[in-house]
Structure formats: C-alpha cells, structure tokens
C-alpha cells in the first residue's frame, strides 16, 4: 500500500493542483486489475486524476517487470537461447511503452484528458503484452528443463508464485487455496477452456493447494459433488 502511494504522488505533482489528492487504490480497483475487468470501466471513471494515475502505475509495473526480467537474465548468464530471445523482446518493448507514457502526464497537463486516456490504454496494453511474453518464456524454460534435465545447467527457473492476497492476511491459507481453485474454474466456465486470462489462477491454486486436495476436488467436480460455487 505504501509503495502504491509513493507511485501516485509524482503524478499528482505533474497534473494540476486543482484536483483533490487521489484516494489510494481501493479494494475494488485492486480486484478490477486482478480480474481483468473491462478497461473501459477504469478509463471512464469520473475523476480525471485517476486516468492520469493509471499510465504512471502501469509504467511502474512495466519497469518493475523489466528490472525483474533483467535481474533474472543477469543472474542466469548461461541460459539457453530461447529465454534470452524472449527477454530481449520484452526488454525492448517496455522502453517504448515507458517513453510513451512518460510523455503522457505532460500532455495531460497541457491538453485534454483524452490523450492521457489513449496513452494509458497503450501502456496497459504494452504491459499485458510483456506479461504474456514473460509467461511464454517461462513456459519455454519449463519445457527445456523437462526435456533435457541433465544436458546443461539451465537456471532458467523463474521465481514466481501466487502473491500475498489482502483477502487472506492470516496464517490460515486454506480459503486462499480454495478460492483460487474456484476462481480458476469459474474463469474457465465464463471464458472457455484455454482462456489465457485463466492461466494465472491455475498457477496460483497449483502453488497454494496440496496436490492431494486438487485431485480430490477434481474428482468431486467430475461427480458433481464439489461443494464450492462453480
């Protein structure tokens, strides 16, 4: 939370003193960003401040992703060719995106909020493409590892797991696992099998739930006795 506030502040300076300070991202916003709710909803929000904030945070996210990617690639000098290529691609795209959206606050302060709107869409799209790229690269490395486990030392494993969720701040994470499992299957039901938006939920529940639980729940779903809201 504190981190997000820090990201919001410079955007405020750049825009204008006329607007009240934007509220810290609410639970709804968090959920929206997490659940791939429609971009239009975010963009057509009543306050113009939010619109300007969006590209900034998006670029921050992009930068973070890039630095993470760079760290990964720097820590893995002898990785195989494919992940390198993927990281190269993804490190190229965000530069353009960040330069794009770094212009946007200026434009927003000078002109209308429409330009900010457009740039925000651009940068968010760029962010999505990057995440897609990173996911792709991780899949590739995974396949490499499975295919040739002893051929060469490929420390291409991406250290990434289900994030800490503010809905489950306690030690007991049973519901976290269950919720992620249900979310995945609801996502599949809504967007169809192999929908790319659902992949992260699958990743999350596989990270959190013991295999035994997942097997039992899969069986229950097949029998139609699963106790959750699917």
């Amino acid at each position, binding site marked *: 939370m504190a981190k997000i506030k820090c990201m919001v502040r410079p955007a405020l300076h750049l825009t204008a003193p006329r607007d009240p300070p934007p509220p810290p991202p609410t639970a709804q916003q968090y959920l929206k960003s997490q659940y791939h709710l429609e971009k239009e909803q975010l963009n057509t929000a009543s306050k113009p401040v939010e619109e300007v904030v969006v590209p900034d945070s998006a670029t921050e996210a992009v930068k973070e992703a890039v630095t993470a990617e760079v760290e990964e690639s720097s820590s893995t000098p002898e990785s195989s060719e494919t992940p390198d290529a993927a990281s190269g691609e993804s490190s190229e795209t965000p530069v353009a995106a960040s330069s794009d959206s770094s212009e946007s606050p200026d434009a927003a302060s000078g002109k209308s909020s429409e330009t900010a709107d457009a740039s925000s869409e651009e940068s968010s799209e760029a962010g999505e493409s990057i995440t897609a790229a990173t996911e792709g690269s991780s899949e590739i490395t995974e396949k490499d590892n499975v295919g040739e486990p002893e051929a060469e030392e490929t420390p291409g494993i991406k*250290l990434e*797991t289900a994030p800490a969720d503010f809905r489950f701040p306690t030690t*007991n994470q049973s519901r976290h696992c269950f919720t992620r499992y249900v979310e995945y299957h609801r996502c599949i039901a809504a967007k169809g099998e192999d929908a790319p938006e659902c992949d992260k939920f699958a990743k999350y529940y596989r990270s959190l*739930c013991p295999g035994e639980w997942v097997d039992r729940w899969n069986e229950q779903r097949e029998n139609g006795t699963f106790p959750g809201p699917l």
Partner: protein
Amino acid sequence: MSFTGIFHFFTNSPCDAAEPWQLGSQDAATPMMQGIIDLHHDIFFFLILILVFVSRILVRALWHFHSKKNPIPQRIVHGTTIEILRTIFPSIIPMFIAIPSFALLYSMDEVVVDPAMTIKAIGHQWYRSYEYSDYNSSDEQSLTFDSYTIPEDDPELGQSRLLEVDNRVVVPAKTHLRIIVTSADVPHSWAVPSSGVKCDAVPGRLNQISISVQREGVYYGQCSEICGTNHASIVVEAVSRKDYGSRVSNQLIPQTGEA
C-alpha cells in the same frame, strides 16, 4: 538415495544442528530468528535486574530479621511510600518487556512482500512430502518428493543421528519463501530452530509461514508435535539462487520420476 547422501556430506557440513549440552539458541539464519535472539537478550536484562533485586531484599530480610538477632518483631503494617513504589515499578517493567515482544510477534506474523516461491510441506506418519508447484502446467505434473529420516543404524559418517534425511528441502537463499504447512494424517509440525520457525501442521488446514534464509547452509529441525514414534526430521538446505535453479531442474525432477 545413498548417493545423494554422500553428495550432501561432501558439499556441506552440518553446522546448524543442535549440539550436545547446548544452552543458547542456534545461530540465526533469518531476520526472524535474529529478532527472537535479540528479544531474548532484552528480556534477560530485566530478568537479571529483577532477580538481583528480589534476592537482595529476600536475603537482607532473612539476615536482619532473624529471630536470634531481632527477638522482638516489628509491628509496622503500613508504609504508603513503599507501597506506591512497589506497585508502580513492577507495572512499568512488563511494559518494557511487552513492547518489543509484541513488535516482534506482529512483524513475524505479517507477510510484508509478495513471496517469490511457495513450498508445500506436508506431514505424514512418519515422513514429509514437499511439493514445489510453482512450475506446474497441469494438475498431474508436480515436483513432489518424500523426505524420510535416515534410520538410527545407517547414517553416513558425519551425519547427525536421527536428524538427517534422505532428500533435503532445497531453497534459494536471500529469497522470500512461503511455506505452506499441512498434514495428511495426524497433527505434525514444521520447525527449524535456526530459521525461527515453528508451525503446526493440521490436517485440512493450510498454515502459511514466510521466511527468508539469509545465508547458505544446511538447517536441521524436527517435528515439534507429538505425532507418533518416529518424529520426522526436517532438513532445509539453502543454496544460492543460481544453484537453486540448477538443483531444481537437475536434481528434483529425476527424483520425482523415480517416485
């Protein structure tokens, strides 16, 4: 199995295990354990202060008011000043103990940053299975292995008795780890003293602990719940991030292939 044991023996020597006649804590491997040790020292300061003061009063009273020295007992029943002092001071001292204690307690409980990886430690009678599922792409494929205590009669030379396991948990050092602790049968627990972690493993419930091992090494722990005759051991081996990648890709996957 035995090959991996020999391999471990030559690469790392067990320096973070309990020693005979050990009095203090084991060396800290996580900031959490460092905090615990520091709190222990803080509290010991007050403990010794109180101990000295109380024993001085006690000995002094016994000495001066002995029946032979002081045959006529004093008849004082009130002393306002001393009563105020002995009420206020003992109520301030617990505050000095409680404040750092609560600060530590809540900072240990809090998950500050997003963890970088999740390990599931599942207790069984009497072994542990560990799941590394961050790399899965389907429900079937999983990086799972069992970790059995090496029996009393065949540890390798230099291994600790009833403390060493056949498959250690390999974790990257200086990384935020989420460990999900649960059990498949009876209540177990997952405890590693030098990382300052002790978490009950309750069937049907997932307990989360987050640790960040600060230095590479091998850390030994044992089940801390009465779970049966063979309390299973826990051995965590922290390696550098780079080594972790190669260990996971090279070592763990073939093992799951066997199992």
